[in-house]
């Protein structure tokens, strides 16, 4: 992220956001409010997942309404293995990645073939259907808690450090977020990223130029899925719990909201959007105006208000929180950080 750094509203915002996120444990310690670390770890987890989805949604124009199922796979890998006494983080990581990749290849292949005719509508519906299938599968796994979920007694053990300390988990998540950000930044300007963006822009021409577009879209889909798997593993470690609700279709929807809220087609957008949405949800559920009826309405039905907010964002705030910031002087290729 060092080369070509220019001072623009967007880059300043990005730096402030990332630095701010890095300082959370210190601030939380100073204020003696450990809750903030929990809240912001959750934000980091979803920012990571949203980053993953952003690869195919923001840069590939593939609207997947089922990416939460990959978070579920990551979470269940931790949960199920821990349940059987395997608490080695590396083993859990390996299992999660293998299962995640296998599912993503199968689901991706079926879903992406429907995009051949050019319509993206079927893709949205089918990804949603598959996520629902995984949800029902998890519910039916009564040996692992089914609908009630599965508690995880011990956090993943990576040998090098202990995740028992909330701050360690926080910084692990933070480090992964930065690593994925860097990886994505390089990827989208590399050959692979150019193919993906070309497919978003004009897939017909990409094929006519000689690109077998399906395999690149599939690879992108698998990569984005694996990032979500990673996020799911972190989530299970954070909550020490896994349940089918992690794969609810509403979670997939919220990931999309985070990306659009932050700014579609940008790299920091998903991080900004995840932060904004989760903070908003937190604020709404505990907001007190002093008017009992209003407080009750907001605290109990904040999800409905979020719903209206989403409609508002789509109809009015089209470019998002971060995306709406000026990108500075127009560059040759207008894709800023």
């Amino acid at each position, binding site marked *: 992220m060092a080369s070509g750094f220019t001072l623009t509203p967007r880059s300043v915002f990005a730096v402030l956001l990332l630095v701010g996120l890095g300082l959370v444990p210190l601030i939380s310690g100073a204020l003696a409010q450990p809750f903030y670390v929990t809240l912001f770890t959750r934000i980091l987890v979803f920012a990571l997942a949203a980053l993953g989805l952003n690869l195919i949604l923001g840069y590939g124009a593939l609207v997947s309404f089922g990416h939460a199922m990959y978070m579920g796979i990551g979470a269940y890998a931790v949960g199920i293995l821990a349940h059987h006494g395997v608490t080695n983080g590396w083993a859990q990581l390996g299992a999660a990645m293998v299962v995640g990749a296998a599912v993503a290849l199968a689901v991706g292949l*079926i879903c992406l*073939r429907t995009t051949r005719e050019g319509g993206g509508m079927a893709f949205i519906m089918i990804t949603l259907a598959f996520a629902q299938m995984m949800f029902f599968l998890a519910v039916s796994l009564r040996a692992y808690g089914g609908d009630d979920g599965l508690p995880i007694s011990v956090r993943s053990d990576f040998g090098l450090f202990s995740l028992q300390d909330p701050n360690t988990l926080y910084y692990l998540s933070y480090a992964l977020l930065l690593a994925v950000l860097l990886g994505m930044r390089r990827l989208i300007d590399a050959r692979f990223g150019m193919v993906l963006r070309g497919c978003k822009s004009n897939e017909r021409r990409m094929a006519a130029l000689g690109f077998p577009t399906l395999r690149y879209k599939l690879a992108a889909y698998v990569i984005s899925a694996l990032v979500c798997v990673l996020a799911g593993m972190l989530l299970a470690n954070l909550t020490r719990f896994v349940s089918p609700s992690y794969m609810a279709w509403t979670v997939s929807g919220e990931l999309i*909201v985070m990306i659009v809220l932050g700014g579609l087609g940008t790299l920091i957008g998903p991080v900004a959007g995840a932060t904004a949405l989760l903070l908003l949800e937190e604020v709404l559920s505990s907001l007190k105006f002093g008017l009992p009826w209003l407080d009750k*309405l907001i605290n109990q039905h904040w999800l*409905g208000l979020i719903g209206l907010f989403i*409609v508002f964002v789509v109809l009015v705030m089209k470019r998002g929180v971060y995306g709406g910031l000026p990108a500075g002087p127009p560059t040759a290729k207008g894709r800023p950080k």
Partner: protein
Amino acid sequence: MTTGLFLTQLLNGVQLGVLLFLLASGLTLVFGIMNFVNLTHGSLYMMGAYFAAAGYNAFDSSFLAAALVAIPGTMLLGFVVERLALATLYTRDHLDQVLATFGLILFFNEVVRAIWGPASVYMNVPQALSGTVSLFGLPYPAYRFAIITVGLLVGLALYLVIHRTRVGMLIRAGASNPQMVSALGVDIKGLNSLVFALGAGLAGLAGLMAGPIVSVQSGMGEPILILTLVVIVTGGIGSIRGAFYGALIVGIVDTIGRAFLPMLLREFLERSVAQAMGPAIASMLIYLLMAAVLALRPQGLFPVRHG
């Protein structure tokens, strides 16, 4: 496994299929003609059920009152939602449509929870249909049989409208080539509103009929919506025929699968394994079916031919 049991489950499958068809037919037209991903269809179904229950309980357990409240009520609600929030999205891309309708789902789910509370609301099967009828020599709940009958009649009526009337011809043309229809000077906005209202009415009807036999509660629309999406994708987007056959296939496979697959697995596999795998596979069955259809025919079973 007796033939009687199998037949009962088969009929239950048809009944589920018929409900799915009511939802799928309206929705597939919205997808096909207006190129609009409308996820609020499940919410309209839910509102239909709630309106029906409200009418039923307000008017001294009258099913007729329930029907009179539910169907026009849902159509009106659909009309209002379309004009206020959705009409601006017709020209936007699918992502915006998905997001906005998703937001509306969250909103509607909270509204019903705020008005009627989180617990299920009840309405009973109408008195006249509370008994059983004799089908192929076995007793079958009269109400469920009524649902099948109504659904098939609606299907027939839809077929006649779509294939024998001028409006229907415009709808079919719109599904095949919306730009051309618009270019020919047909009031495409009016056609869109008509299709949307028709879909809303069908959703309301489905909600009304499902009211007595399902749990009427917040969030009931989404599982049905996703099933409906499976039907539409399997049958072919924009195709009423696809919606009909797709709905019946999905309804029957899902019902029969859930009823008999665990039992079937126990014949072949060790008890504990069958116990664990049975319900799991049964719940995944229709999605696997959808995957199989898409693997062989990505456009669905009865795709609309685009001009």
